[in-house]
């Protein structure tokens, strides 16, 4: 363990003295402090906070992923290229200790930079809310709104329909049922979040409708006529939700002139948001997931650096990073391949083969990158959605322990087999 710690310390020193940490820290500070000056929003503290959470956190993760991948790619390949490993490998070290030490050192660097980014985001949000020009009550309301995260409760599935899917004609109404569990005990209010598509699609103005909410014990929790925009978050003032009951939510379409039908397409488009945790705790969980993702990127970079020279390793690992950030593109290529359309028969054979090759390769990439899709803090934080500890733990176990461990064993095996006496391969 002492040997691993020595190599980790060396890696950290290298990152400090080669100014990697300074440059990355400067980039983080510039992104978090400078971005709100570039993206203004509507000028309200609420929108400023959303910018910090949405754009700044996303950019922070991008900058750190880039740094982690780059440093990972250079950790082994540069040592081989500059021959320092020729001396290191003559010392009583196993290749797994070298690999683990480097990984540990880089993960420490990631942790420091991520903590800096997280602290800056949190500080900037507090500063924005603190400087908002409202009275004390307004400040408290604003803080409660921004600094609270919610657990999304989806509606119970109705028979024959996909989740909350509903088409409501003028004059008609539709109701959804939400199961409230003990976890909702103590909630002082709830938010209803919904998105619908108006029909005719060309209808642009708000659609009039009545929202009613009730539980078995509380009859009139909500009875509100609203002009609903297609994307809207409605504030439902529920004094005390019955912890074990069923919340019935009804929407009555009263838009008759002109007649507009509203369509709620799927389950994710309507949910009840129950206050669950504070923003800071949620940000912490988001940062933990972010840290786990960085460990994954670092390991990927290190594997590339163990197999290839530095330029090739950087190219390969940044390619994987780009795929990771492209999201559905990789999955789409893995499922469908390239959509080539060649009329000539001989070309269609080539296209067919090419398509198959692309599909197989991208299936592999999709498989390698699949955990990243599952554990993405950006799927939660911008919408103020609660990140469960279970998901945080899973992400840590999978991305920060399991994957790096597998890559560690592969990398150490490759390093052991590689003849480092030759400076390039």
């Amino acid at each position, binding site marked *: 363990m002492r040997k691993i710690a020595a190599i980790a310390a060396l890696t950290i020193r290298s990152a400090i003295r080669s100014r990697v940490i300074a440059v990355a820290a400067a980039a983080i500070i510039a992104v978090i402090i400078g971005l709100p000056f570039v993206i203004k929003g509507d000028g309200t503290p609420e929108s400023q906070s959303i910018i910090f959470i949405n754009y700044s956190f996303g950019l922070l993760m991008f900058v750190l992923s880039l740094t982690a991948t780059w440093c990972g790619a250079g950790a082994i390949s540069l040592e081989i290229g500059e021959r320092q490993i020729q001396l290191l*490998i*003559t010392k009583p070290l196993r290749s797994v200790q070298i690999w683990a030490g480097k990984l540990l050192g880089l993960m420490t660097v990631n942790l420091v930079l991520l903590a800096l980014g997280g602290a800056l985001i949190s500080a900037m949000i507090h500063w924005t809310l603190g400087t908002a020009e409202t009275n004390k009550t307004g400040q408290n309301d604003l803080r409660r709104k921004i600094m609270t995260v919610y657990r999304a409760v989806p509606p119970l599935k109705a028979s024959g329909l996909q989740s909350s899917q509903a088409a409501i004609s003028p004059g008609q109404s539709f109701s959804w049922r939400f199961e409230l569990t003990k976890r909702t005990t103590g909630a002082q209010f709830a938010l209803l979040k919904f998105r619908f598509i108006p029909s005719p699609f060309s209808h642009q103005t708000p659609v009039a409708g009545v929202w009613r909410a009730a539980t078995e014990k509380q009859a009139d929790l909500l009875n509100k006529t609203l002009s609903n925009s297609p994307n809207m978050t409605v504030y439902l003032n529920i004094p005390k939700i019955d912890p074990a009951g069923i919340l019935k939510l009804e929407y009555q379409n009263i838009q008759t002139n002109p007649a507009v039908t509203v369509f709620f397409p799927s389950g994710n488009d309507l949910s009840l948001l129950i206050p669950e945790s504070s923003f800071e705790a949620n940000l912490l969980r988001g940062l933990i997931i972010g840290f786990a993702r960085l460990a994954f990127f670092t390991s990927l970079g290190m594997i590339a650096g163990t197999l290839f020279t530095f330029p090739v390793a950087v190219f390969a690992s940044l390619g994987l990073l780009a795929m990771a950030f492209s999201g559905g593109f990789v999955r789409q290529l893995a499922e469908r391949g390239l959509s080539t359309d060649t009329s000539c028969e001989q070309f269609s054979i080539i296209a067919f083969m090419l398509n198959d090759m692309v599909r197989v390769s991208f299936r592999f990439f999709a498989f390698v990158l699949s955990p990243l899709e599952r554990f993405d803090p950006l799927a939660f934080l911008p919408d103020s959605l609660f990140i469960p500890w279970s998901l945080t733990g899973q992400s840590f176990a999978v991305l920060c322990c399991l994957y790096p461990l597998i890559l560690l064993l592969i990398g150490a095996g490759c390093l052991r087999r590689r003849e480092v006496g030759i400076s390039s391969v």
Partner: protein
Amino acid sequence: MKKRFDRCQIDCILHERQKDRNPVFKLQVNQELSPIGPVIKADGLTKVFRDFWRRPVVSAVKAVHFEVRAGEIFGLLGPNGSGKSTTLRMILGLLKPTAGILRVFGKEPQDVNSKAKIGYLPEDSCLYPFLTARETLMFYGSLFNLDSSILKERVKQLLEMTGLQHAAARRIGEFSKGMLRRIGLAQALINDPDLIILDEPTSGLDPVGCRQVKDLILILAGRGKTVLISSHLLADVESVCQRVIIMNNGNIIVQGRLNELLENEAIYRFCVPSASAEQIQVIQSFLRMQTGAAPQTDHPRKTLEQFFLETVAQAQPGTTSPSGVAYAEKVAPFLAGEN
């Protein structure tokens, strides 16, 4: 004839000098080869470099056999491209033999326990340029699981021995080539190794540094350490090595004890401490009469190295160079077996 005589003079002077300066040398020169098994054993050792398609490109080492025994100073000589660096790298586990058997301390070169007993000074600086001299030694020392207090003491002693105590806080990237050799040597000795592998140990060092390194090698060998030296500077190898192999084109072309290889048994040399011109004439007449050949007579010369060392010692005793290198005389106590 003249050349041979010069060679003998050098032997004589160096031998006398070493006896005077270093009592350990007496132990070393009289020491019989160790009865312990070989520290390094190569049997049919072959290395073929291949290209990307696994086609053989060059046979760097061709089925060589040699042994390095415990406690001896062994020289590995050869012109550029002869295969000596490849052989060294195979011994260190940096390259894998294509064929043959190679054992270091009776085990595979990659064995971690064997590596704990090896100290290696590479030809090029393979050190981290962002570390200071002290941090470098602390780092490499920590890889041997040395106790913290022992490690600190060793680092201090090695910095003093290599004359780098004034440059201990400077980064390696700022060092001159000579300073790099010194810190490189220090890191190779941090674990008080049983086998010291030195690749061009005196390259880039000034004559004072060269002398110190050679003295150190003799002291280490006197403590039973095995030293393997690869060098182009034949005078250095000759002054310290007991046995050598000379490689050419991947083959060992000569192998044996240095004295046996270099000694010319057909010629004898007599050294007379002081004699008058008449006495010399008498001796010459006697030798001419007995051997039928005219003996050659001259005065022994100092080597340039010896002259330089004496001059420098008189000019700047105990001074420090502008680069921070001090002319240290003392060998690190832990290397001399004092603690």
